[in-house]
């Protein structure tokens, strides 16, 4: 039994190199065979259309990002297609269906919350079950609890930490107190 010397090592590495390239060739032809079948049977999606979609998407993003494009101004201050102007906070006035008072549309939700006894203070008082707490969300989060099916990537839930008002605002910058 000879000790491993340079010759043995190089023939070993040559051998493993050969085996590796055989394996690699085999895998490459496997993939080619699979793709051949997909193409011949017409199972591949229309690649040209997809390339076109990607191109359109990239073009769109470039155009929209271009600062020289007037693009979209903050549409809260523009005239809509019917030629109408609207104030940032909806000014229509109607009667609250719970208490009968006249309320301005843009402040209806906070009013209704208190009116129906569903306000933050009302909630803090009431005893809450743990499931109710789990279902509640922190504001504005694009997070959903309603997973219609379970997948292995679990549904993300944000725990509603402090029910504080800090930072709660409209996108147009007005800060609303509930």
């Amino acid at each position, binding site marked *: 039994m000879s000790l491993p010397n340079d010759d043995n090592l190089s023939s070993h590495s040559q051998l493993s190199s050969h085996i590796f390239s055989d394996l690699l060739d*085999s895998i490459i032809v496997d*993939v080619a065979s*699979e*793709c*051949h*079948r997909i193409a*011949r*049977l017409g*199972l*591949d*999606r*229309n*690649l040209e259309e*997809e390339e076109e*979609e*990607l191109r359109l*998407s990239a073009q*769109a993003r470039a155009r*929209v990002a271009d600062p020289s494009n007037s693009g979209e101004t903050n549409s*809260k201050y*523009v005239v*809509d*297609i*019917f030629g109408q102007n*609207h104030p940032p906070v*909806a000014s229509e006035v109607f009667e609250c*269906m719970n208490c009968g008072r006249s309320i301005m*549309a*843009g*402040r209806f*939700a*906070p*009013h*209704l*919350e208190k009116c129906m006894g*569903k306000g*933050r203070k009302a909630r803090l008082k009431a005893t809450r079950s743990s499931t*109710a707490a789990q279902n*509640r*969300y922190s*504001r*504005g*989060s*694009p*997070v*959903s*609890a309603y*997973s*219609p*099916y379970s997948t*292995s*990537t679990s549904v*993300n839930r944000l725990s509603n930490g402090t029910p504080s008002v800090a*930072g*709660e*605002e*409209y*996108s147009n910058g007005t800060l*609303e107190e*509930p």
Partner: protein
Amino acid sequence: MSSRNPSYTSPNPCKHLADYKLKHGLNGYNLIQNYIKISPHGRTMIHKCKSETPICSFCSGYKGRLYICLICSSVSCCLSPDSNHALFHAQSQDGHEIAVDMERAELYCCICCDQVYDPDFDKAVMCKHILRLPRTENGFVGYCLRSSKRKRLSFGVDLNSKDAKRLVSMRDHRSKSCFPLGLRGLNNLGNTCFMNSVLQALLHAPPLRNYFLSDHHNHETCRKRSSERLCLPCDIDVIFSAVFSGDRNPYSPAQFLYSWWQHSEDLACYEQQDAHEFFISILDRIHEKEGKARNTIKENGDCQCIAHRVFSGMLRSDVTCMTCGFTSTTYDPCVDISLDLNTNTPSSTNLANKSIKLAENTGTTTLAGCLDLFTRPEKLGSDQKFFCQNCQERQDSLKQMSIRRLPSVLCLHVKRFEHSPIKKMSRKIDRHLQFPFSLDMSPYLSSSIVRKRFGNRIFAFEGDESDISTDFEVFAVVTHSGMLESGHYVTYLRLKNQWYKCDDAWITEVDKEVVRASQSYLIYYVQKVLSHQVSEDLSCVPVSPRGDAFVPIAGCC
């Protein structure tokens, strides 16, 4: 977008294959069936002799590609361009042109030097698969032999476009006539953009719109009949009437909000909320109300309430034991599909998917990529080992989702958040998602996914007979801008091929490009046959809403 046949096209055989079939029929296939060996992963190979490695009968070599002749079962190698003993064999022996690739059990024509296809051969391979597979929980439901004749039921379209036109136009009395009906701003009542954005999408979902506009749920008659005073479908009907009345002043959905808060205790609060959650909540409330009011369960268990008739589809989940190949299949209904964003991690299992590679190279995330991710076989973690009934123990498993039945209106929910367990916080993913205006869902159907699992053999799989077309057109996109905790929702509507931005009370016209570049959160697609995207001439026909001119629409959406 071409309406792609969800199934395959059987390619024409080469002359040599055709001659072979004429002479030998299925004999060779039946014999080779005995040599087929299937690994637990579903890989099909030809194994001639269990104890020996196959070698070429010419050179005794084992390198290159090995082919077994269908006539004489001799094995030849192909090491092109250096040597091609398979060709040699075919040239020296008359009639021995057709062989089978031993690595993948594919037919090969040695003279054409090309892979060829024959449905009868694929059927023989599939029979072996079926016989060898342990019974699934549902028997052989997933993999049974069926005739390849496909029924084509004409899908009961809710209304043809003439009726729809009449419906939509009859309410228009005062509209500024150059703009489509049903376009009306919704006042923000205080952090209610999440609600307004989804309402705009629902108002323009063709089957839902047609249902309410044709008085299938009349809020006046309903209140009289029902003892309960709360009826969310009634409030929705009121909104439809208001929005399609022709009045263009922004509408305040206050009654609706009040009603919804009375129905949904846990969501009733003045806070920014999640639009997707709201969408699901509304469908639940409609289902509750309609489920009680009528006998809404058909024999096959499908709920017939309008929410489900429009949005409900069926998902299939296959869990496969990696040791023995036993697959357990379950079906679950769904009203939408939540998709994880396909971030740029190249996947080694997606070698054959050209478009993913293309997108990843250009650094974009695409809807097709997300759908592929959704239907990709996924190895369940070692903490989620599945109890295999065949092996009678917990084994590593692969899970794969697919769509068994598509809904009329498909809502795709983009999960734009990621949770870091380390930092114990979530953040929003602002990454742009490319989505097509025309979407073909056929690659994600159960029939396509199952077929792919078996090597795309030409075989009639269950679910090939599909009543519903797989072509969809986008009609509404709900977008979100801002952060996880506070942001703003805006909906883009596509009416008669023009896009409109619905930002609470403000309705403006926008370019397609703005929509393409937007940050989509909920994308609503409708089956192409139900959409009315071609330009129509909506001439006002003075028809009374409940007059006889109406064709009674039974059993439609």
